[in-house]
């Protein structure tokens, strides 16, 4: 009896957290008649892919998708390279005046800035640099945004490795960068991959900077493209839902890939779940 109650509670929770996403998926597959059906068609309707065709063939959503992919991948790679080097330094070397600890905390604190605080000056800076409505502007901003996260995560992964291996490599005549590249990086590869996936997710989902910095069809990301349609007067629900469904797919694949590191990544390395 008690166990049945427990499962019932969990089923209610499951329904609450999952049914809205399911509803959007059905809307993306329904003809307009079915979308407005009363009572709402939760289960039975004849599926159509017309909205997907409309969004990604007729309208510009394919272009937004490509922009999102390029921006996410480029910013993740640059944040990963720059951040990993810094993390290795902070994890392995003691600087005078406890500077290594202070720097780590300072780097983390830049991540805590509310996005709108830097969005206003970054817009003005990018305007002065004539970088508004370019992918480059987003790559630059996302690199800076992901950097503290990479440093903090990788610092944790490096700290967990024993030093003996690098020492052996150094004694064997490897340079310090050589030891990092050949000995240390392969050992933290799973952590590095998880960190990369988190950066990809954050960049892929990011909205406010993209909204402020990109307003043209050629430069906007998928979230901005979706938002631009939602707030107009006549809303194409099917197109929105189809674009939303496509935006979710890579995220779910990524999330599955990093399940093991999920808690750690989401808590900025604070909880090692």
């Amino acid at each position, binding site marked *: 009896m008690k166990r049945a109650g427990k499962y019932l509670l969990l089923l209610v929770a499951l329904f609450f957290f999952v049914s809205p996403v399911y509803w959007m998926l059905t809307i993306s597959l329904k003809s307009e008649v079915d979308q407005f059906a009363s009572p709402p068609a939760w289960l039975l309707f004849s599926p159509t892919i017309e909205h997907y065709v409309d969004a990604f063939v007729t309208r510009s959503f394919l272009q937004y998708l490509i922009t999102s992919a390029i921006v996410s991948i480029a910013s993740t790679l640059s944040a990963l390279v*720059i951040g990993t080097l*810094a993390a290795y330094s902070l994890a392995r070397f003691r600087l005078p005046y406890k500077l290594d600890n202070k720097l780590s905390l300072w780097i983390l604190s830049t991540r805590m800035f509310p996005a709108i605080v830097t969005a206003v000056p970054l817009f003005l800076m990018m305007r002065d640099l004539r970088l508004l409505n370019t992918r480059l502007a987003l790559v630059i901003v996302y690199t800076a945004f992901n950097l503290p996260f990479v440093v903090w995560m990788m610092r944790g992964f490096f700290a967990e490795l024993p030093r003996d291996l690098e020492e052996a490599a150094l004694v064997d005549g490897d340079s310090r960068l050589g030891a990092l590249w050949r000995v240390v990086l392969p050992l933290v590869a799973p952590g590095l991959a998880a960190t990369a996936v988190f950066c990809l997710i954050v960049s892929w989902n990011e*909205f406010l900077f993209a909204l402020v910095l990109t307003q043209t069809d050629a430069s906007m990301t998928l979230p901005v493209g979706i938002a631009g349609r939602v707030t107009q007067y006549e809303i194409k629900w099917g197109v929105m839902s189809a674009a939303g469904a496509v935006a979710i797919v890579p995220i779910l694949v990524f999330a599955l890939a990093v399940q093991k590191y999920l808690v750690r990544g989401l808590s900025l390395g604070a909880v090692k779940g």
Partner: protein
Amino acid sequence: MPKSKRLFSAASRRELVFPLLLLTPALAVLLSLSIYPLIYSITISLQRETADGIKWTLANFARLGSDSFFLTAMAHTFVYAAAALVLEFSIGLGLALLLNTQMRGRGFFRATLLVPMMLPTVVVGVVWRLMLNANFGAINGTLKEFGLNTEGLTWTASPRLAFLSVIVVDVWQWTPFVFLVLLAGLQAIPQEPYEAALIDGSSRWQTFRHVTLPLLKPAILIALLLRTMDLLRVFDQIFILTEGGPGFATETISLYIYRTAFRFFDFGYAAAMSFVLLALTNVISTIYIRLLQTKETA
């Protein structure tokens, strides 16, 4: 470990070169894209362009106290954050306790609950517009099926319901995060204290109150800290769902700063307000971090 000392401690100046070199790119990026924007922001918040050049002034900050939009947006932000935080914490803790036992299907439940928080916030906005639409939304349509009168339930069109709606949406998206962090915290608690409590004959409530809660405190504080920071700066979902409306009923501080900067192009005033937000998040995160540290040293 003498060897280790020799290789990794920076005893001489020459040995500082390599670690500092590794740090340089990261520091350059953060200085130019996080710190410089802040300085830029301070500058424009303290300036006003007049006919005879740029004048330094505190006018933008003086305006804050008498701007009813600003004060209302701050109030909205606090109420929104407090309500969402309480709900996310209670439901998240409840779910974590429910799933912190051996049971069939636990992995499935855990994985499925994670879906909302991974979604792009824009998609979350779309999802809930579809659910909440007064005419063809799934919620009203389904309620009608059960014979309920849904005429008054214009979710995003009436001020009170719209405010409730944006809270529910945040609870929907982020309770799974609180749940996940707390579950990880629960699973890190060793068995011994529970066995001791059992031997002492503690009741289940006493065990929870005196064993579970204290040991869970670090995880609780981290979950609350990260949620509070996010809630105070909330923008995306509300922007998509209500655009701060109806009227300004759901306008939080981030939305008002956005409106000031990118609808009225008053960048100076927007910058001034963003410093209030920054100061606020700083104070609150410092409090949380102090609490965390007292736990660790106690």
